[in-house]
């Protein structure tokens, strides 16, 4: 059994195109409504997030689930009506509030007001995150810079190890993976209120490394076959390389996905969306190295190879 990525490329490329366009549309809508292509967490824009859980060891404290309207009333009374509030936890005994950046006193005031209305909270289950706006901007720009630096580093490494057209196409495939992952998170941000934080930047960078790895393995094989059979047509070489490395690509992605699903299911709140971003990105990475990077390389080589052949025949004629 052998399948040809070159022949069916129209199908794969339109699939990728559609996914990317949906993502871009979502980012555009998000830009209109939220002011940024993805829903930023307080890591990047600053703010305070308070997560409080009722102390259920006290009698009658947890008898009723927490009512959103009660929390909203308290928060509004503190002059923080723009805050977002969520009731969380299995028995709806915990709340998560995100406000503008509060200082210690403001926060203490809010906490006191909340516990007067809702009952005592367990301090050992409290989580407080405050990021000042200046530091948020810095985290954001450093994250972007890390991405750019890593892209450049990979292009340089690949150009040294392979020819530069390999490197450029590998990076194109990489953009494809990153675009689709951010697109899906943009949609999640609009529909589910999923926010992107520092860990999302980490996920994107990890996807970068992994996606290129997948492409490199196929390229290694293309180079090997080309060395053995320099006269085979490039389309056939690429098809052979993809087929020979297919099991490896699938199995590697599968083992990584196994650990990621474990993280997604058991890893807890903090790591859930981090694992999800990696699951999407790694799947896309395997997909793009087979269905985008390989046919693209074949086409590019075919095109540039043809023009070379033409030149040589012409010179033969004249000579």
């Amino acid at each position, binding site marked *: 059994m052998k399948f040809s990525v070159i022949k069916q490329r129209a199908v794969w490329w339109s699939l990728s195109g559609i996914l990317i366009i949906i993502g871009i549309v979502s980012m555009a809508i998000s830009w209109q409504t939220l002011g940024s292509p993805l829903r930023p967490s307080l890591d990047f824009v600053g703010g305070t997030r308070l997560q409080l859980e009722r102390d259920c060891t006290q009698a009658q404290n947890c008898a009723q689930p927490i009512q959103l309207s009660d929390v909203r009333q308290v928060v509004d009374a503190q002059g923080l009506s723009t805050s977002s509030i969520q009731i969380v936890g299995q028995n709806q005994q915990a709340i998560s509030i995100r406000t503008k950046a509060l200082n210690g*006193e403001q926060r203490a005031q809010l906490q006191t007001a909340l516990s007067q209305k809702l009952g005592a909270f367990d301090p050992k289950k*409290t989580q407080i995150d405050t*990021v000042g706006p200046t530091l948020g901007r810095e985290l954001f720009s450093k994250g972007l810079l890390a991405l750019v630096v890593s892209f450049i580093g990979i292009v340089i490494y690949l150009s040294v190890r392979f020819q530069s057209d390999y490197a450029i196409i590998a990076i194109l495939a990489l953009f494809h993976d990153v675009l689709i992952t951010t697109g899906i998170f943009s949609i999640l941000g609009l529909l589910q209120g999923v926010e992107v934080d520092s860990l999302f930047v980490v996920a994107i960078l990890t996807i970068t490394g992994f996606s290129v790895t997948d492409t490199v393995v196929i390229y290694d094989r293309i180079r090997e076959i080309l060395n053995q059979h320099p006269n085979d047509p490039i389309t056939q070489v690429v098809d052979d390389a993809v087929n020979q490395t297919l099991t490896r690509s699938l199995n590697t992605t599968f083992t990584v996905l196994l650990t990621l699903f474990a993280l997604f299911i*058991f890893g807890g709140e903090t790591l859930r969306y981090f694992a999800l971003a990696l699951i999407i990105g790694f799947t896309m990475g395997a997909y793009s190295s087979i269905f985008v990077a390989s046919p693209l390389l074949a086409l590019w080589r075919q095109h540039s190879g043809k023009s070379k052949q033409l030149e040589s025949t012409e010179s033969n004629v004249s000579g």
Partner: protein
Amino acid sequence: MQRQRSLLVLIIVLVIAAIAAIATISVPLGLDLRGGSQLTIQVKTTPEIKQITERELEAVKRVIEGRINGLGVSEPIIQTVGTDKILVQLPGVNDPQQAERVLGGTAQLEFRQQKPKTEAQLFALHATQIQLKAKQEQLRKAQDTAALAKTQEEIQKNNQAINELFESTNPPLTGKYLKDAYGEPEQANNWSVAISFNEKGGELFAQITKNLAGTGRSIGIFLDNALISSPTVGPQFATAGITGGQAVIQGRFTPQEANDLAVQLRGGALPVPVEIGEIRTVGATLGKDSIQSSIYAGIGGLALVLVFMVVYYRLPGVVADIALIIYALLTYATFALLGVTLTLPGIAGFILSIGMAVDANVLIFERTREELRSGKTLYRSVEAGFYRAWSSILDSHVTTLISCLALFWLGTGLVKGFALTLALGLGVNLFTAITCSRTLLLLTLGFPALRKPELFCPNLPISNSPKAEVAK
């Protein structure tokens, strides 16, 4: 074979050493796992101080240390980060409000003069203070929170009493008049601290020293209202005071003591405001829950990968599994030996690296199967599998490492933990996935019972026999 044997010995020694390291050294947990508060303090520039240098940052850090010690928290960690930030970690603190209150704002340094007839009182209070501080240090080590809070209260009361023995000059001689302070040796182990004032400060200092010279009363140097030094002034300065804005505090200091006092003085003289840029607080119970869930995730992920490898790759799969377990042991031991603090993203990096670690083995075994299918002998196929997969393995490790470097270089605390664990994992993996699994695989080939191609690759064509090798 000799080489295989010595490699096998090396692997066994490493595994035993790793187990010993894991058993004896505990990997410190980050605040997101053990519970506590982490504050990032940003040092702001002002029109006078346009750039924060390393020396200034160090001075501000010393001031912050002084304030944190005043909180009575056990095991606080204070470190400088980058060019203008100071990271304060307070384990076990669920409510950072108190810390926030004392940490914000500019340092207050002031030179005050002792009120008359309080010498004996100061002497007694000073002695109590030293006792209390020693007791506090002990309690901090013992992590006795309740007693620590009580001692802290006593220290504050004592400190208040000391404060009342001193009065400000008019206008007060504050840190803004102090130009510099540094420790300098008088004799080998007898250091002093030189201080210099600006012009106005020099005049005020001359005044204060003239008042106090020869009386036995001291100058009280207060940083954030805590007495850090109380030198007296010799009688020879009674007529004019210490003039010229230069003075030396003598006290038979050790080099460390002298430098510490100088750094405190410099920190107090800096008019730079500090601002709390970030606070992350995680309750202890939440941290415990996170540890719990990441252990589940880690074991779950590892088990799934182990099962998959055996089911799919059979005998080599078993070898890869052993290599993977060795990988997990060695990597964790590396964390312990290097003192890597384990955070939640760090654990995620570790778990992820388990999934990625088998990639090299997958590449090798796929290659081995191909060689087998093309009719090579088992031994040659295994060798070729390792040899030919090497270039792909190297490339894939380097590209991921590039991303890790970018993350580590530009990332902040949490992100750094992830990059570090992933990068360390990649390094260990180069050893385990190649050297370990190769040695183990070649070793299994030494047993005739295991030397069957079908244990390596199912559904091999029947034509595959050693004859094919001969025909070549």
